[in-house]
């Protein structure tokens, strides 16, 4: 069950948040900011995938479709309808959520994990091919560039805040705000009746059914929420980088990275996906010269973690700082 956070956990979270808030004061180096923004985008993606795979126990492999739908959806709405990215990222999320509900319905009828894996991979491929082929709309493999960035704001105390490519720090704080918001939503969900039922479902479907829980509707809702969050991450990505390609936004490589991050951090934990995202993104950037080995590394990492450290890095913490036993 989802226990209330221990004092240790609260201190840890507060410490991490503080560190993140103060980082730009220590170094506003645009490169460092860029890496952290990416890490947070992937962190949001990873946490949302973990919601479905780790908490709801529904093992899917096609979430990169939602990232791409959110990214392209938001970008195209902003470009063709002249809407503000502040609005379109939510619309992008909604598009992704709709797709999530659409594909979620058949997936939930299927009990067999291999079938779900196949359907989700197939679905993501369909999305990728559509995005690549509808080049009239999306510019296809040539890439969609010139995506509008967030318009500037005027904040009390801070004054004018702009989001041009030179303002990495603004993006950093925006990403941080989104990350915190998303975490808040996920924790609230897991603490609610729905969340508890979900964990019961993950650990033993029959028991949950006997409690009179409408499993299918619940799983579908969670799936849709997860798709929504991933869509927003994708939309943010689009308006941050200002350029999208089918490979970067809907490619399997993206999903591989996310899987590696979640497994490394710890599937089915709250902090695991974020830890994994930060660790891997930073690690990869630190080893820039080894770009060629990046994917190879992710793949090997997945194999090694799944075989030898299936609960991820976060459980190592449990060995050094043992938590009080649950009854």
């Amino acid at each position, binding site marked *: 069950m989802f226990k209330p956070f221990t004092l240790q956990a609260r201190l840890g979270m507060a410490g991490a948040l503080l560190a993140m808030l103060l980082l730009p004061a220590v170094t506003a180096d645009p490169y460092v900011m860029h890496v952290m923004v990416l890490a947070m985008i992937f962190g949001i993606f990873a946490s949302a995938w973990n919601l479905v795979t780790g908490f709801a126990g529904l*093992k899917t*492999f096609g979430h990169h479709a939602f990232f791409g739908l959110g990214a392209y959806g938001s970008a195209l709405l902003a470009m063709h309808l002249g809407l503000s990215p502040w609005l379109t990222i939510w619309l992008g999320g909604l598009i992704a959520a709709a797709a999530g509900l659409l594909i979620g319905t*058949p997936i939930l*009828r*299927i009990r*067999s*994990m*291999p*079938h779900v*894996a*196949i*359907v989700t*991979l*197939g*679905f993501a*491929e*369909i999305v990728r*091919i*559509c995005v690549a*082929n509808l080049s009239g709309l999306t510019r296809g493999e040539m890439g969609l560039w010139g995506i509008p960035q967030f318009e500037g704001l005027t904040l009390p105390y801070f004054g004018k805040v702009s989001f041009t490519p030179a303002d990495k720090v603004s993006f950093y704080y925006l990403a941080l705000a989104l990350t915190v918001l998303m975490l808040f939503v996920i924790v609230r969900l897991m603490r609610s009746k729905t969340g508890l039922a979900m964990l019961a479902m993950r650990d033993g479907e029959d028991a949950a059914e006997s409690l009179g829980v409408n499993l299918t509707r619940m799983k579908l809702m969670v799936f849709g929420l997860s798709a929504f969050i991933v869509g927003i991450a994708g939309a943010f990505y689009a308006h941050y980088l200002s350029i999208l390609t089918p490979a970067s936004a809907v490619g*399997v490589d993206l999903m*591989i990275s996310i*899987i*590696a991050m979640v*497994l490394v951090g710890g599937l089915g934990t709250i902090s695991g996906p974020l830890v994994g995202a930060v660790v891997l993104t930073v690690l990869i950037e630190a080893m820039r010269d080894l770009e*060629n*080995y990046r*994917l*190879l590394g*992710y*793949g*090997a*990492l*997945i*194999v090694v973690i*799944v*075989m030898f450290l*299936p609960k991820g890095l976060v459980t190592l913490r449990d060995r050094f700082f043992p938590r009080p036993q649950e009854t």
Partner: protein
Amino acid sequence: MNLAIFLEQILNGLISGSMYALIGSGIALVYGTMRVLNLAHGEFYMLGGYFTFYLIVQFGLPFWAAIPLAVALAFLLGVLIQKLTIEYLIVRDNWVFTTIAATLGLSIVLQNAALLIFGERFNSVPYYVSGVMVLGDIRLPWQRVLIFVVALVTIAFMTWLLKYTRIGWSIRATSQDRDAAEVVGIPVRRVYMICFGLAAALGALAAAMLAPINAINPWAGIPILLKGFVVVILGGLGSFPGAIAGGLLLGVVEAVGVQLTSSEWRDVISFTLMIAVIWWRPWGLFGKK
């Protein structure tokens, strides 16, 4: 469209279909016996292609020697991978998820290892037989006819193996009831190894036959895996005969479908078809509940 061209398309469809059948049957074999979905199956195809390429182009072997050798190498590779990873995972918790995740990771490792070792150049080998077979108004390159013949022979061989040999019986028994197989003395772990090796061999054979036609490159396995999925979904995930039927059907449907739409949408059509089948008949078009 005149009849000859239509028939030619159907025949071409059957030929591609026979290759799909070989590929899909490998996935079905492994899933049927071990209930493991091997996401690295496409890489057996990719590596089979590279083995063939190196044996023929670098070592100068004639194709009829290179191909069996490449297939044998793939068999050994399959056995090795099974022993090193799958065997370890399959007896532990959550094996359904961990085997899918591990084979996914393995797939990426193999693709990128191939990239690093072999480079990103697209390679091919010369045709094994030249010339065109002419039957009335129908023209088929002999290379393609050879592909079809080899596929048929292989399918016949596998069917004979499964129905009449000790190994075949042990494979079928293990896939139908693992405990009962153990109880009658079938060494189930060895059966798993053999199945994995066979699956790799079948994938490599398809690659070897297609080497003169399709480019050999590190990512060749990706579309192959996806194609293989469609095949086994049509035929029923664990069914060897289903995969054969599914493969042939897919080949013909694609050949006909390409006449109606352009080829860039071909995969969208087959994946949508696949998802529809999973929704309506998850046990496959030919399988039983």
